[in-house]
């Protein structure tokens, strides 16, 4: 899945600790809602524009211009199965798919630059770009995070540490990865609720976090859950993971979407956000200037986006998304939020407003 635009954020965040500030009041306004044929699973913003790329369940990549009053996305055939991840380097768009392919695209011509079967004939679940745009990370169901030269596509190293089987002896999945804002660390999250933190430059595993209650086996014989999205706080001290309070049925009825935060160096949980809404938090993103975690609900029935106040440890704001959301991304100035999901793409204006008392 995609991510917030980290390269610009890292500069903004270098000199400030947003957690020390009082929470502002968020205000959101829907700017545009674009209908698309298939479900959209991932998004990558194009800096300096109101445009974004989105990957669909029809194997197509969509270029969506949210400034157009009646936006008609430009689409091209990219994968022969679901498009599961996108990253935009400025020069290339890199897409990942359930067809096991990792593809570099020349976006001006919509042609392939290269295509790799990157994960040992397994699904690729997502990609993340380092803040400097030089390294691409990909995760797949071989349970390996692989680092690539984002320009040449040459492999850099493999990060191995996630178990291939769940505690119940079934095939596990490596769902997500994300770089820290300074690019020093990389986090990966798997189905069993394990998050690993890696030193990006050396590939050394530096922390292992077990997020409780994001994975279990229920009375129905389901093993269930997983870390569906992961993110570093702007200062890099916290890691957030999200998914679902696992343990309910496959219908996801009455289950709670959940996000948890950890001081990963101390291996200590700091926040727990079980939100009573029917679904998963499929995508999360820290706001770079405010102590907010933005969490969007997908894969259930709840059609909302939540802004979670990390200082008060409570929901600060929630708004309707009009669709199930599978991925979100902030623009580089963090004043617009783009979401993609069930047959739609949406863009909101996100204002911080005044400070709370």
């Amino acid at each position, binding site marked *: 899945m995609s991510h917030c635009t980290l390269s610009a954020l890292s500069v903004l965040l270098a000199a400030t600790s947003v957690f020390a500030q009082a929470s502002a009041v968020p205000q959101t306004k829907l700017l545009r809602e674009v209908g698309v044929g*298939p479900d959209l699973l991932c998004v990558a913003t194009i800096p300096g524009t109101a445009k974004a790329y989105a990957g669909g369940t029809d194997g197509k990549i969509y270029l969506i211009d949210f400034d157009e009053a009646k936006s008609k996305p430009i689409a091209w055939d990219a994968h022969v*199965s679901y498009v599961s991840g996108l990253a935009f380097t400025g020069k290339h768009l890199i897409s990942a798919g359930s067809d096991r392919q990792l593809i570099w695209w020349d976006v001006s011509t919509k042609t392939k630059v290269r295509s790799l079967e990157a994960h040992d004939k397994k699904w690729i679940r997502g990609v993340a770009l380092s803040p400097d745009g030089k390294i691409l990370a990909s995760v797949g169901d071989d349970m390996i995070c692989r680092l690539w030269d984002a320009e040449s596509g040459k492999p850099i190293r493999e990060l191995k540490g996630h178990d291939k089987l769940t505690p119940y002896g079934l095939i596990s999945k490596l769902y997500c990865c994300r770089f820290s804002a300074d690019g020093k660390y990389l986090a990966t999250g798997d189905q069993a609720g394990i998050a690993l933190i890696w030193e990006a430059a050396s590939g050394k595993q530096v922390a292992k976090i077990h997020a409780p209650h994001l994975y279990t086996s229920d009375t129905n014989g389901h093993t269930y859950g997983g870390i569906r999205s992961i993110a570093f706080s702007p200062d890099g001290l916290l890691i957030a993971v999200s998914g679902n309070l696992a343990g309910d049925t496959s219908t996801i009825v009455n289950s709670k979407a959940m996000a948890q935060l950890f001081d990963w160096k101390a291996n200590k949980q700091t926040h727990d956000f079980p939100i009573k809404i029917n679904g998963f938090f499929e995508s999360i993103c820290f706001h770079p200037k405010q102590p907010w975690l933005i969490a969007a609900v997908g894969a259930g029935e709840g059609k909302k986006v939540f802004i979670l106040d990390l200082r008060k440890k409570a929901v600060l704001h929630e708004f309707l998304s009009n669709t199930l959301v599978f991925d979100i991304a902030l623009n580089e100035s963090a004043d617009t939020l783009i979401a993609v999901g069930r047959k739609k793409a949406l863009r909101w204006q996100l204002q911080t407003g005044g400070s709370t008392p």
Partner: protein
Amino acid sequence: MPSSSSRAVASSSPEHLLGRRAFFGATGGALLGGALGLDAFAAPAFANQLQRDQKRVLMIFLNGGMSQFESWDPKPGRPTGGPFMSIPTSIPGYRISELMPRMASSIHRHTAILRCQQGFGDHTDFTIYGGRPKTGPVRYPTLGPMLARELANPNSQVPHHVMFTNYLGANYFESAGFLGTTWNPINIVPDRIAPTAPFTIGHSRVRLAPPANSLPDSLSDADHREREALRVQLSQRFGVGRSRDGVLLSHSGAYGRVRGMMDSARLFDIEQESTQMRTRYGSTPFGQQALVARRLIEAGVPYVRVNRSWWDHHGQNFEFHQEMVPELDHVLSVLLEDLQERGLLRNTLVVTFSEMGRTPGINAAQGRDHFARMSVTLSGCGIRPGVVHGSTNDDGTAAVTGSVTLQQFFATVMRAVGIDHQKEINNTDGRPVPLTDYGTEPVAAVLA
């Protein structure tokens, strides 16, 4: 109209009588106390005899309804197809989901595929009753008791019908109906574990053996035998003039098998298997139950059903199937290999049967809903391997050729193991009722 039975295990045949003598000779005194133990297979003559004569059925029942799209009838690249690719199989021109690589490479050896049209797709007993009514003037039996009754060796003291499940919800238990409770299964269900915060729903612990299949500490073996002798004496006296009383016969029969059940305890103990064999089946509850099922089949239990739950994926369909289908692929493949290696597959029919299928449409929660069309497999005894009977259209929304009814499916299962599917059995009121509805024809294309 009914035809004569073609059962291969007719108890009066000379071959069978020879088999019974071999059986008693091989098991000796141990059998006088009850069950056929696995030790009996130390005598090759007996093992061969059993393998030649006795037909058995092992059903893997997929509670909740496995998706045919993510298993036996994939439609990749179509709007209904979902994210998984298809892969070629060892049957030319036939492709299955990429989640089943082991079956893909070996499916031609033992297995045929049927496309079934249920007529009704929801959570009921409808499927396991073969579409017959559960209630009404005739208390129809489900498939399991019919098979158990027709295949059971009357002299065997092993259980004749065992069902495993990993599920605490609607398991769709087998029901003998008018056949009498003798033919109901031993149901092996999980223990319920209370929820721990923050969960509000509990968990389950899967069992591999029936509870209380051994004597309590307070009761010695001698005491138990004396009590049984007294029960037999009283029961015989009470039974005078009641020889046609089905309830009484069922009651007496159940008690009569108690010693056999207790002596069968080792059959349920996978510790009796080598570490290598246990590893081969896998550490999951389903894998372990399948291994116990094989032990039971090997010992002569005529019908064993293993439920794998819960496939009802209205949400997160692909995530769940990505986890559960490879497990099914693994366990089914190992089971077929193991039965083949032991010489048992020739007389054992392995069936995968689902509660229902899943819709072509993918809902907002990335799930698939209930659908009255599914694919089932038949492997081993009496089956012509490598046959794919029936086809669906490009999106899997409708049958194009060869759609099979549940009654036809039941008839095919019966014919594969030598049972006359039109055999009539008298209902409790004396009315003859056929095993499958009059006029039902098995699918000849998949029968050897």
